[in-house]
């Protein structure tokens, strides 16, 4: 799939205003996702609690270590996998499960054991650094290939830093370019 080059401003979460109807639709997405995931945790005998939220115009569902589980993530890290590979697969399946129930394509965001939260922090730091360098030199900077989720975090951070960014190349080699003002 080619998305073309999308200016970051269009996807900035602050631009999204939701109606009460949107919110209840997204909450319903979260409920369906939680049921699907909870049953999986049960079957696999994994200890986890599920948090639901609506964030940036999407349903957001997080699987967090269950109470009394003092190891950070513990067993749940199996559901994250190397570079979040398993997490992406589970998100894909969970979106399909939501789609089956609602008939609508879901953009639900799944996190497990804080993987995305941590990744988001690291990427925001990386993007901020790139923004500073671009402002200093006036030259564009091309970052390394990233997943759609990672690119979104970078685009948002760059927009907050007052610059624009674009994506170029084809998946899985698609990367963000930070542009000078």
């Amino acid at each position, binding site marked *: 799939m080619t998305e073309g080059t999308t200016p970051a401003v269009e996807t900035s979460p602050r631009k999204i205003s939701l109606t009460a109807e949107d919110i209840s639709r997204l909450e319903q997405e979260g409920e369906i996702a939680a049921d699907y995931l909870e049953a999986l945790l049960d079957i696999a005998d994994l200890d986890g609690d599920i948090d639901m939220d609506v964030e940036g115009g999407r349903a957001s569902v997080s699987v967090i270590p269950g109470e009394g589980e003092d190891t950070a993530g513990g067993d749940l890290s199996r559901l994250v996998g190397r570079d979040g590979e398993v997490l992406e697969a589970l998100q894909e*399946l969970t979106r399909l499960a939501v789609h089956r129930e609602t008939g609508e394509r879901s953009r639900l965001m799944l996190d497990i054991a804080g993987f995305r939260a941590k990744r988001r922090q690291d990427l925001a730091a990386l993007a901020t650094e790139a923004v500073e360098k671009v402002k200093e030199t006036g030259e564009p900077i091309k970052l390394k290939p990233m997943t759609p989720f990672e690119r979104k975090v970078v685009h948002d951070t760059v927009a907050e830093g007052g610059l624009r960014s674009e994506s170029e190349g084809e998946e899985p080699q698609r990367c963000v370019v930070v542009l000078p003002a």
Partner: protein
Amino acid sequence: MLEEALEHLVKGIVENPDDVKVRARNLRRGRILEVRVHPDDLGKVIGRGGRTARALRTVVTALGGRGVRVDLVDVDQVR
């Protein structure tokens, strides 16, 4: 556990969950989980470019099924 997990994952995404059957077969070359679905759902469990099938395999592997093969077939298919 693997069969049950896979069955749950597939049932949740198809239009005909009652037709989903997962059977484990132990062959000399390793274990196979054979997933049978309604013919109308085969495209759905495979997904665009095999994306959904890949996601199912990734999760099965993560749940301890390293080396386990996941086959997707429709109920009319004789093997």
